[in-house]
């Protein structure tokens, strides 16, 4: 991609989570979120009243290299015990293609939701975030669609490749990263439903 710099600034809002569970029981503690890009990480503030349906609405800004070295950003939800110990509820990996390139034009505010899985690969809730890639100084907002979308005729091929690539990356990297059956459990290809609370 023809970016002048190798880093882009991301505005990430950690909005909320739904149905957080630890050992199949709803979380009742204070929860917070950690975003990791490359080696760097940032925390959201703690949510106290929400329990298993926390609302953080916390905006953070992070830089992301765009030279292809970062293909995922990771989000982990943790809770704090009464003694101040921090324990993991679950984590999710966000492929960069979900908010850059693909269907997301530049400057688009992406509302994204992901399934959280705990260290055993079991479902432990859903996390809702929004991500905006801040336009570079010289870029006009919504100026140019990403290269993969310029030629409409090639589009279908591009997109399915991109999707396939994203999937491929997902599996290889997740099975490398987590040895404890994470990849195996995810690649079912069967829609598996998990109940979530509808807001009324």
């Amino acid at each position, binding site marked *: 991609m023809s970016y002048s710099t190798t880093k882009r600034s991301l505005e990430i809002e950690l909005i909320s989570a*739904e149905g957080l569970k630890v050992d199949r029981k*709803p979380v009742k503690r204070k929860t917070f979120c950690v975003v990791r890009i490359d080696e760097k990480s940032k925390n959201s503030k703690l949510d106290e009243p929400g*329990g*298993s349906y926390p609302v953080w609405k916390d905006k953070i800004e992070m830089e992301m290299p765009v030279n292809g070295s970062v293909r995922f950003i990771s989000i982990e939800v943790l809770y704090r015990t009464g003694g101040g110990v921090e324990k993991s509820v679950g984590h999710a990996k966000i492929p960069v293609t979900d908010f850059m390139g693909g269907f997301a034009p530049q400057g*688009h505010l992406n509302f994204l939701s992901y399934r959280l899985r705990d260290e055993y690969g079991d479902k432990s809730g859903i996390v809702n975030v929004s991500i905006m890639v801040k336009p570079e100084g010289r870029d006009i907002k919504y100026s140019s669609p990403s290269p993969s979308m310029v030629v409409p005729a090639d589009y*279908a091929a591009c997109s399915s490749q991109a*999707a396939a690539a994203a*999937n491929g990356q997902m599996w290889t990297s997740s099975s490398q990263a987590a040895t404890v059956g994470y990849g195996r459990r995810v690649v079912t290809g069967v829609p598996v439903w998990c*109940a*979530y609370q509808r807001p009324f």
Partner: protein
Amino acid sequence: MGNCLSGDVEGGKQAIGGVQQRPTSTTTNNAAHNDAVDFFFRSRGQFPLFSQIELSLSASNLIDRDITSKSDPMAVMYLRKKDGKLEEIGRTEVVLNSLNPKWIEKITVSFQFEAVQTLVFHVYDVDTRYHNVPVKTLKLKDQDYLGEATCVLSEIMTKPNRSVTLNLAGNFGAGVSRKLGTLSVQAEETVASKTVVEMDFRCVNLDNKDLFSKSDPFLRISRIVENSVAVPICRTEVVDNNLNPVWRPVCLTMQQFGSKDTPLVIECFDFNSNGNHELIGTTEKSVAELERLSLHKEVARFVYPSTSHGRNKVLKGQLIVDRFVEKVQYSFLDYISSGFELNFMVAVDFTASNGDPRTSSSLHYNDPSGRLNSYQKAIMEVGEVIQFYDSDRRFPAWGFGGRIADGSVSHAFNLNGASYGDEVVGVEGIMTAYASALHNVALAGPTLFSHVVDRAAHIASQSLSQNNPKYFVLLIITDGVLTDMAGTLDALVRASDLPLSVLIVGVGNADFKQMEILDADKGRRLESSTGRIATRDIVQFVPMREVHSGQVSVVQALLEELPGQFLSYVRSRNINPVGAPPAT
């Protein structure tokens, strides 16, 4: 049940009615819900003979099906159709541990003056282990049955106080006759209004009602209707162990609170898992008064109603409104009439599962006598509606699952056969393109939706990058037999954050179970194989056989969810109608 005391009371502690959790959610009382249908009819001089009615339910003296605690009741309302079958209209929330529940969730039904609408109410005791589950997904056969009651809607509407009390009846095996309690139904006509108020409430110095810890307070807001009955409209979440609680923002629509001068009863309770929530204090304020409180940084004192002296005891506890914002919530029609464009795209199923076009049983039957086949009928009926709402009547039209001229199977070919340019004009354009495709394309397979969904998503995303006020609707006309469920889910989830809805129109009589899964109506969000979850519900499934059997009109069926899906997109992004002043 029985383990109610063991701690899983989370479900009972959540807020109901007017406290938003997901940024992309629309309020359940969507005033614009039938606007789109209304507008369609009115434009042709047909005024719909119905009005929207909101029913509030309450029950008393329900039977107890739990051993160590009380029942956790939920009511389900059905409409009895002509053939005697019950069609579910709506469900209330689950009230924890109560034999005299007052449900907050309202059930909306359109009152048709000329029809006899028989309503059937079923009351269930919902097992504790389902308490964290959205009520729409509950399987009713897993729940304990508490009885049922029936009445005719016009019966309620003609009563002076617009309410009826019905005796619950039920079959509990041979020879068992028990008093099952009563169910009261209160009806109100809904007011379509755009005003919404958002308030941040907190309290200080609440009385302590718990022995070993502090109170667990929550607020319940009720509106006093004409006959001085208080109808609860919203409840905040429970703040544990706190005498100075701060609650999440409460968002009330004018539909909920009536007018700014309607008195509202605000009660503060101490949450008890056994259902005996103890009243801490109560105060009566209209929305206008609450606004004044916030403006002048004043407080409202809670009082405790006294039964013996007739004088209420004024308490130390105070209610504070930290923030009061009045917003205008635009309706679907506000957007459309301001110049927000709807653009439809059409994709037709050319897979072999539809049957050989030469046989008369085929859905694609090429009738020499010129009679329309199932697809043509569907295109004609659906086309009339989308043509009305599409701004330029130009539709990109594709086919999928067919073997095209070069001998390859394509999952997104141009219906008009052109190698470049997929747009056709009007319903006639779709019909002509369809007829030519039927001649030039051989039915093949497999059935993949993902290519057409991706193509639609691409168009939507391009329009987005040009910052156009446009919303897209992909219409897939199919026999409903899907080969690649996982791929379709992935494509739909990928597209769920774009200004796009997918309307799947099912023709024929195949098993539409897969389509129902894609239509994430039952409160479940679609999940892709990569673990991404659909940002919002963008799919609606319309089986044509229901339209043809006269159960719903094609307009109603098609436009049922579209306004809501559209609004969930624009509202989550604070997009206003074109030229409208920005919301505060």
